[in-house]
């Protein structure tokens, strides 16, 4: 069997993955880079990021305040050495994106403009109107086309990491168009597969956000860190979950309850609409429970009101929001308030990786949302994730190129055998299996409902225990799944089955990590343990895969440098 072989193989074609691929080539122009993505790269979910990318660029801003805002925002679960390195690198990366053509919105003097954002104490969020992720992704993807060292494998789905003697030497990938399994070997592999929002029913995340990279690393023996830390964004459109950017509040929008009241005065009086996402989402749910939400056909909601900002400002700074309102809700945000409610948005947790993206598995790196490098802790600040993709994508690309320069070549024999085993496993489980009667779509919908109910904005031991039991039941039913599509060509039902398999893995890691963290910190709010407990839980959770439903949990220390934990009030 022949297979492609690379020095560096990137899995995922979003902002972190492409940034990693370019960084690897720029670190060493002789490096051969592969990039495998289950969708064409410009479909990656980076495209949906709206509000902006934070970096201490503006006059009067400082690394220290960006670091402190991030650490306080994380509820002190961020690793402070990682945050300090991140804030120094972020401005460089924003300039690099500018040189590559990103159409950043500008100040009158032609410098890059910044806007206010939640949890940030000063204006530091660079933006390209309200399509920042879209512009960054297309800029970096189009730029990547000029590097002949980068070879893409578009629409190929990685089903397994090849690990030989505790060293990652590539992947097995299903070519979606042909149904063929390929071994793609590499001296190093960078996971940049994004988030897992689709384990929830109500999410801003696209259909492709199924936690693939996290599940791949988890099954290969890497730890998943802080998986209980799931971000709920305060402002999603009811029914669709479409994101209404935090920049709406950054630019001066109000959140109003059914009394017409800016209710955040009771929760984050000093920051109001510019409070952090975790606290505002909890405030909204609390208001709903106390009867101060609007009732709609798709559940309770609040009003996000920008009418006082005026049409000229809205068209200049929030044109996509006006378009989304018009196209998807049938309102004009210049004249009508926007209905919003909290929605799953981002995963703080992810593959345990160090400051350069290295995981505990030799040759395996991770960057972007699928990784946990220790930047976001218990709650990510809005506009830190785009620079996270750039800074840590680049770091992982450089580290992988450097490691690959001296790594041993990959040998063919064990790879052949591993490819054969993996292809047989998938075919036996899905293509050749007879007699199953469970529908993938039904199991997926039930998992999503269970996750919304048990691992949402507020959690309890009872709710999480019930969720764990129900996930066990869904896993058993998944073993009896029925695949109706027997074609080799573009079989999206097999894809859906493989994705659901991965989602059930990461859902269980979330649930058991959340059950064990008996405190409230950041986005993890336990009604039965409402206080933060630094004595017991100023720790990272590490979940390791086992043959049972429940992972094995370990804890590791949080790195504190300059900022001692204190009460988190806004």
């Amino acid at each position, binding site marked *: 069997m022949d297979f492609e072989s690379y020095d560096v193989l990137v899995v995922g074609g979003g902002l972190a993955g492409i940034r990693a691929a370019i960084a690897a080539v720029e670190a060493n122009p002789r490096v051969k880079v592969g990039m495998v993505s289950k*969708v*064409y790269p*410009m*479909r*990656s*979910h980076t*495209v*949906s990021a709206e509000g902006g990318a934070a970096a201490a660029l503006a006059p009067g801003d400082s690394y220290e305040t960006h670091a402190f805002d991030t650490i306080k925002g994380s509820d002190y679960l961020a690793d402070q050495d990682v945050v300090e390195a991140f804030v120094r690198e972020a401005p*460089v990366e924003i*300039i*690099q994106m*500018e*040189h*590559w*053509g990103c*159409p*950043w*919105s*500008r100040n009158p*003097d*032609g*410098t*890059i403009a910044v806007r206010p954002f939640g949890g940030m104490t000063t204006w530091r969020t660079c933006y390209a109107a309200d*399509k920042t992720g*879209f512009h960054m992704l*297309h800029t970096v993807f*189009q*730029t990547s*086309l*000029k590097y002949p060292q980068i070879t893409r494998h*578009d629409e190929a789905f990685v089903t397994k990491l090849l690990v030989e003697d505790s060293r990652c030497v590539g992947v097995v990938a299903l070519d979606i168009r042909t149904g063929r399994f390929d071994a793609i070997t590499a001296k190093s592999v960078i996971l940049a597969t994004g988030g897992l929002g689709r384990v929830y029913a109500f999410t801003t995340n*696209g*259909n*492709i956000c199924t936690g693939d990279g996290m599940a791949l690393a988890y099954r290969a023996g890497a730890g998943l860190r802080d998986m209980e830390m799931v971000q709920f964004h305060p402002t999603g459109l009811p*029914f*669709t979950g*479409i*994101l209404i950017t935090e920049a709406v509040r950054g630019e001066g929008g109000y959140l109003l309850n059914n009394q017409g009241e800016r209710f955040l005065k009771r929760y984050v009086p000093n920051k109001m609409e510019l409070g952090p996402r975790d606290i505002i989402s909890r405030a909204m749910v609390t208001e709903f429970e106390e009867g101060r939400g609007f009732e709609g*056909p*798709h559940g309770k909601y609040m009003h996000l009101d920008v009418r006082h900002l005026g049409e000229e400002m809205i068209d200049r700074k929030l044109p*996509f929001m006006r*378009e*989304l309102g018009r*196209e*998807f809700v049938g309102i004009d945000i210049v004249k009508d308030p926007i209905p919003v409610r909290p929605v799953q948005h981002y995963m703080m947790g992810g593959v345990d990786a160090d400051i350069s993206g290295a995981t505990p598995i030799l040759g395996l790196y991770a960057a972007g949302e699928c990784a946990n490098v220790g930047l976001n802790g218990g709650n990510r600040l809005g506009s830190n994730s785009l620079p996270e993709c750039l800074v840590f994508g680049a770091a992982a690309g450089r580290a992988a190129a450097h490691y690959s320069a001296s790594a041993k070549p990959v040998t063919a024999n064990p790879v052949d055998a591993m490819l054969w085993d993996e292809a047989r496993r998938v075919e036996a489980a899905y293509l050749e299996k007879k007699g199953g009667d469970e*529908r*993938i*779509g*039904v199991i997926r*919908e039930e998992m999503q409902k269970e996750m919304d109910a048990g691992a949402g904005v507020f959690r309890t031991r009872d709710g999480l225990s019930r969720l764990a039991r129900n996930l066990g039941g869904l896993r058993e039913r998944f073993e009896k799944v029925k695949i*109706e*599509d*027997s*074609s080799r*060509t*573009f*079989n*999206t*039902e097999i894809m*859906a089955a493989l994705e659901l398999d991965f989602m059930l893995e990461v859902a269980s890691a979330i649930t058991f990590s959340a059950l064990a963290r008996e405190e409230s910190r950041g986005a993890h709010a336990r009604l039965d343990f409402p206080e933060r407990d630094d004595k017991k839980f100023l720790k990272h959770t590490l979940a390791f895969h086992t043959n049972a439903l429940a992972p094995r949990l370990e804890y590791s220390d949080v790195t504190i440098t300059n900022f001692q934990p204190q009460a988190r009030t806004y």
Partner: protein
Amino acid sequence: MPDKKVTIQATRFDPDRDEKPRLQSYEIPFSDESMVVLDALNYIKSHVDGSLSYRWSCRMGICGSCGMMVNGTPKLTCNAFLRDYWPRPVVVEPLNNFPLIRDLVIDMDDFMHKLKSIKPWIIRKQEIPLGGGEHRQTNDQIDEFRQFSECINCMLCYAACPVYGLNNEFLGPAATALARRYNLDSRDQGLTQRLPVIADTEGVWECSFVGECSVVCPKGVDPAKAIQQTKLDTTMRFVLPFGTRE
């Protein structure tokens, strides 16, 4: 109305089995006024027929995956509302003018090659170092190319283009708009490198200015304008070889 139904007729084609595409009819619950064509396809795939294949992801009109012909018009199915078609059946077919891979999935490799051919990246005679900071660029300068940078590569314009339908060597609307996006960017100096591709006989000159590309664009991009401007540009290059910017 709990019992409201909608009929979806979707193209089915498996190259391993079928000689040619056919339409398959599904009647599904039209349970919510907010449902779009993509929701209907997802309902079919989850609850009726798991073998139906199509691409989609963001369902908010920005990733560009879910373009299909809806009752004969190229549309993003994530914002084609069922209520606008009901009670008539909704016919969902793969985008016109592309080779068909499977069901509603088209082969867009041709565009990916065209995209690369127009060198869609900033080209400069001399890079300024990162330490030198950003290029100064005013919002007015961005407005010069802004609309062309909004292309989501959804392929609706190619599906609507009668010229591309006859001759797929034609560079076509989106690729020309993106070339224009870079040529108009005050930071870019790559016009002369792009000209051989866009001014080629199969480049902009094939366009017969039907303008359908601009009509179907879901993002307000005007590729027809990009093509006409490029024609003017390339003509001016012959008449006035020393433009103000390379």
